[in-house]
């Protein structure tokens, strides 16, 4: 098939009561079945509308706030997909597995690939040096059932987020892929999107066409809101990304989408209601062969060869998500600025419709290791609106903006080929390909 219809479901997860003692397996299943009742309606509706695959969120069946002990009743033993198993028709083959059976039947009865996130448990013994003291490994796991209900992929989340104390890190990275009539797919989960292993490897080495991405993503403006970041990943990595987020406004969780390399197909961001949402879009099965496949970008080509803009105004420090940036203020309605930290220099040229007295913008740069809730090295160039007119608030989250930019060009002397371009508009909405373009020399600029 040249194209296919993809669906993602942003699910408002029904959460278990917080408890310090484990509930019974029956109570755990009752809670999971409540969530599966909701997912079932979404899966049926997606299939009726022609979708061939649907992605549901991380933590979408059992929720969160678990300890290692309290999540145990929610876990099932998930076998290697090589065993060739259809849980819907052989529910007892691998012991207690009611959730896998129900997911398999939903896929089979609706003739649709179903991607879901559940928990896997694997017993181990004293001969295993790494075996936890309670005698089992517990894994945050993504599963895929094909349109016949067969388990075709199992992925143990490799890069656990700091708060996931209920799960074990897999010893080695595993690469979960599955072939369909509509292209080759890869899987990773939430925090993995920051990683080389497995996220980049799935794309660069395994040459997948599409990624299915269950996530439970807490939005953090200005840089790491789900829709802008995930859509920029699809654009930069040049694959389809089917991103299903949980929906919980109290936890800042919203933002799901279907993203293609050449365009954002559809996205959902809603901090006003507590509703779930089904999204569907048609995608190219093999985007690498498309005529409008994005050209390769040399992200530092322009910036390394342009003379830095000089300014007599002082730079100032600011903090974004625990990282110390260097900023310079955009003091006029039109201008050119360069700001540098370590090996990274960022260049900005811009023209505002007018310079408002009640809004302050700054150009920021960061070149360093992020060390909170995980460690990863970043090089960032960002133009952002400060929270107030006080420069000390530059980098703090802000949701609305009235200053309009007629023209802009942003570039940087990056020492990596993995650069993700994003523009967030007032209301945390997304600027689309109609608004901006990325030139092959690495400039992110407005379309004229």
């Amino acid at each position: 098939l040249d194209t296919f219809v993809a669906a993602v479901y942003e699910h408002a997860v029904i959460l278990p009561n917080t408890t310090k003692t484990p509930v019974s397996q029956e109570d755990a299943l009752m809670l999971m079945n409540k969530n599966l009742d909701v997912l079932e309606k979404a899966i049926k509706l997606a299939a009726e509308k022609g979708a061939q695959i649907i992605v549901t969120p991380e933590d979408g069946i059992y929720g969160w706030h678990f300890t290692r002990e309290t999540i145990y009743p929610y876990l099932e033993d998930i076998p290697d997909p090589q065993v060739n198993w259809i849980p819907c028709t052989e529910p007892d083959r691998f012991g207690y597995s009611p959730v896998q059976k129900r997911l398999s039947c939903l896929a089979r009865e609706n003739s649709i690939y179903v991607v879901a996130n559940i928990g896997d448990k694997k017993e181990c013994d004293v001969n295993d040096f790494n075996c936890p003291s309670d005698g089992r490994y517990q894994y945050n796991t993504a599963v895929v059932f094909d349109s016949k209900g067969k388990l075709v992929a199992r992925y143990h989340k490799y890069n656990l987020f700091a708060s996931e104390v209920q799960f074990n890190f897999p010893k080695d990275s595993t690469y979960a892929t599955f072939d369909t009539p509509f292209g080759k797919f890869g899987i990773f989960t939430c925090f993995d999107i920051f990683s080389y292993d497995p996220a980049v490897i799935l794309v660069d080495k395994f040459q997948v066409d599409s990624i299915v991405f269950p996530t439970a993503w807490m939005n953090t403006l200005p840089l790491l809101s789900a829709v802008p970041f995930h859509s920029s990943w699809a654009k930069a990595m040049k694959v389809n990304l089917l991103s299903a987020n949980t929906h919980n406004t109290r936890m800042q969780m919203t933002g799901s989408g279907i993203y293609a390399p050449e365009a954002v197909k559809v996205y959902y961001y809603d901090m006003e209601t507590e509703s779930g949402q089904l999204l569907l879009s048609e995608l190219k099965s093999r985007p690498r062969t498309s005529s409008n496949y994005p050209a390769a970008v040399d992200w530092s080509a322009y910036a390394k060869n342009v003379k830095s803009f000089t300014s007599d105004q002082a730079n100032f420090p600011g903090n974004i998500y625990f990282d110390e940036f260097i900023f310079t203020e955009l003091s006029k309605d039109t201008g050119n600025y360069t700001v540098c930290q370590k090996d990274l220099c960022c260049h900005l040229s811009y023209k505002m419709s007018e310079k408002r007295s009640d809004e302050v913008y700054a150009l920021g740069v960061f070149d360093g290791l992020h060390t909170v809730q995980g460690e990863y090295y970043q090089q960032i160039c960002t133009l952002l609106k400060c929270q107030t007119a006080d420069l000390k608030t530059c980098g703090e989250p802000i949701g609305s903006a009235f200053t309009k930019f007629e023209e802009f060009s942003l570039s940087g002397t990056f020492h990596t080929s993995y650069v993700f371009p994003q523009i967030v508009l007032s209301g945390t909405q997304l600027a689309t390909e109609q608004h901006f373009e990325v030139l092959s020399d690495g400039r992110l600029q407005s379309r004229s």
Partner: protein
Amino acid sequence: DVPLPILAMTLYGRVFEKDPPRLGQGDHTLQ
């Protein structure tokens, strides 16, 4: 080409070769 009310415009680079072996295994956690 409607002028854009921009909140943030970002080039977000990741330098993977300077990462630790696994992202979630840093020594620092959020207090």
